[in-house]
């Protein structure tokens, strides 16, 4: 059992320099800052083109204090494997190899190499930060853009297809550890990265990272929006450890309390969902309810319980 990290036990040293190029209020900034604290300095990061490439700095200045290899869009996971090969050949032990990609670089163009590495069982951590679109190229739809969202290339009708469930795809590879996180819950993220590093093989962490300009909300609400996604039950925090699925953190609490916030609160707070009609929101609410009903059925109803 891992002890839970709290704000005071979180390492104070920052591994990302201030004055980087991420937009004000970018939740990736939170996730990356906290994530690197969890990884520590003995780490090599692989990054494909994305907002993170820009956050990390333009030559000759790097915003990150860790060694990092920028690679082509499709090749993050394969490059991670290559680093492992070299470290093994050179007898360098105990260095964390981490691929850190956007949702496009994970769920779309990067999926083939990621799947290959999972099947081979290469020993690295893959982190996908999910801002639900191709933000670096100006907010186009990606495989993980949710249904109904307006993007630069779904500008009128919104995206017509559902969000691709990447963590489920990763779990299907039977890798030892899959977890979902949110930038709005940094301590949970920190602990999950720490836990992931204890496993051998590909570990996968999916982080929901609200994006103010891409989603259409004011920067100060980045954490609020992230929390709303979880508290409405639209985005679940969970872990899959050796194929056992378990809701964690705020989602686990939600399951215990049996009270979801209305999905409407989440949708109506963002410009990208402006065209969703009330009946479409209601339909999504039904789907969330059905999904969570299944979770609720796995626990006892607190209202029927008499707490002592």
């Amino acid at each position: 059992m891992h002890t839970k990290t709290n704000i005071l036990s979180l390492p104070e040293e920052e591994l990302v320099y201030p004055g980087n190029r991420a937009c004000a209020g970018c939740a990736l900034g939170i996730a990356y800052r906290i994530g690197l604290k969890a990884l520590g300095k003995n780490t090599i990061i692989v990054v494909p083109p994305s907002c993170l490439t820009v956050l990390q700095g333009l030559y000759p200045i790097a915003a990150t204090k860790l060694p990092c290899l920028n690679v082509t869009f499709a090749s993050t996971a394969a490059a991670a494997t290559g680093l492992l090969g070299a470290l093994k050949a050179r007898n360098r032990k105990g260095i964390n190899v981490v691929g850190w990609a956007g949702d496009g670089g994970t769920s779309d163009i990067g999926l083939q190499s990621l799947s290959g590495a999972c099947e081979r069982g290469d020993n690295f951590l893959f982190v996908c930060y999910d801002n639900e679109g191709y933000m670096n190229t100006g907010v186009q739809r990606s495989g993980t853009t949710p249904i109904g969202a307006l993007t630069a290339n779904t500008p009128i009708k919104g995206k017509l297809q559902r969000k691709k469930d990447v963590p489920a795809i990763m779990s299907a590879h039977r890798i030892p550890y899959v977890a979902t996180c949110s930038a709005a819950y940094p301590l949970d993220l920190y602990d999950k990265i720490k836990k992931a590093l204890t496993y051998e093989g590909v570990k996968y962490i999916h982080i929901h990272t609200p994006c103010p300009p891409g989603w259409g909300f004011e920067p100060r609400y980045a954490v609020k929006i992230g929390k709303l996604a979880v508290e409405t039950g639209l985005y679940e925090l969970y872990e899959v450890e050796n194929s056992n699925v378990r809701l964690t953190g705020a989602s686990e609490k939600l399951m215990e309390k049996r009270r979801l916030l209305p999905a409407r609160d989440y949708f109506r707070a963002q410009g990208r969902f402006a065209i969703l009609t009330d009946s479409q929101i209601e339909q999504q609410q039904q789907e969330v309810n059905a999904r969570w009903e299944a979770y609720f059925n796995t626990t006892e109803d607190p209202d029927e319980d008499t707490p002592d």
Partner: protein
Amino acid sequence: MQIIESGNVAAALGVKLSRAQVIAAYPITPQTPLTEKLSEIIEAGDMTAEYIPVESEHSALAICIAASSAGARSFTATSANGLLYMHEQLHWASGARLPIVMCVVNRGVGAPWTVWNDHQDSMSQRDTGWIQIYANDHQQIIDSVIKAFALAEEVMIPVMVCYDGYLLSHTYMPFDIPEATLTDSFLPPYRPAYCLDPDEPANLNTVTLSDVRTDINGVKAHGYMEIRHLLQQDMLASMDAIERVDSRFKNIFGRGGSPFIESYRSDDARFIAVGIGSLSYHLRDVVDDLRDEGISVGVMSMQLYRPFPYQAVAKALKDCQGVIVFEKALSYGYQGPVCSDIKSALYHYVGPEGSRPFVLNYILGLGGREILTKDLYEGLKLSCTTKPSSPDKPRWIGLKL
């Protein structure tokens, strides 16, 4: 030690002797037996290396790029569409200045599918910033692989060793396997000037601006164009390194001496036929016949295609009357790429009669179309005996429309 084996095995043995540390490959005919052989050598414990069976060629080169960035000697091999699938990564590897070595077992590209030999695959990667070496026989394959690592690590530019699919990859020929103790002294372990390391962090292949920019210490760093300019400078300068590596190899193993071009019966030749790979040997037979008939003709094979050894090429060809370039690749809409490059190398030279040699181009053998000695003989003889018309339009040999 002399053995009789296939060209693919010659390449694999070269990689083994080079002590590559990370090898990643994806199957494609006719490269497959080369990497199968390597997996066998490694699984049998005869070589210490990480062999990574990837899910695509794009990933194969990604692995080499990352492994090389982290300081390991890296190798891959492919053919045809596999090479085309790597295209983005080829530029990445050279732009990142990584000494990766790759064998390209030459095959025609689709569509339509063909598995047979021509040179369209590697020729269409000409501008990716890789050094391209072509081997004519099995001995040259094994020797070139070993030399390629030494060269790549000296100039920090990746190297392709290309050889003909089937004609060389699958045929059996005798060749000498160099002594491991000697190859070890020829090619010491790779010691990168810099490689990724948490003790010395750096962010590699960062987005680079059009203009120069000062670094954190206020020192002016390059812009994109300076980095690219240096690649071109070093690519051109690598011709000296190629000569050095070749003569070092020759001193130890007694083979080599013509790293740019190989000339056959060319010293006094009025006409010179140009070919690449096994075709150049085929041309030698034809030239022998034509010489018997009193036609003054020789053969030049291109051993190095990038950097283009323009001075050696011009020197070899400028004084003759005609150059006939036989090519298994095309720059569609113009002519064979080697033909264009040769013409451009000759542009500054004016021959003894106040004119440059004519340069004719023949396209042949695409997708493995059989190259008949009779056709080569007739084409070459005609070119040496009649005044050429419309020389910019390539002629086709063996076409059956």
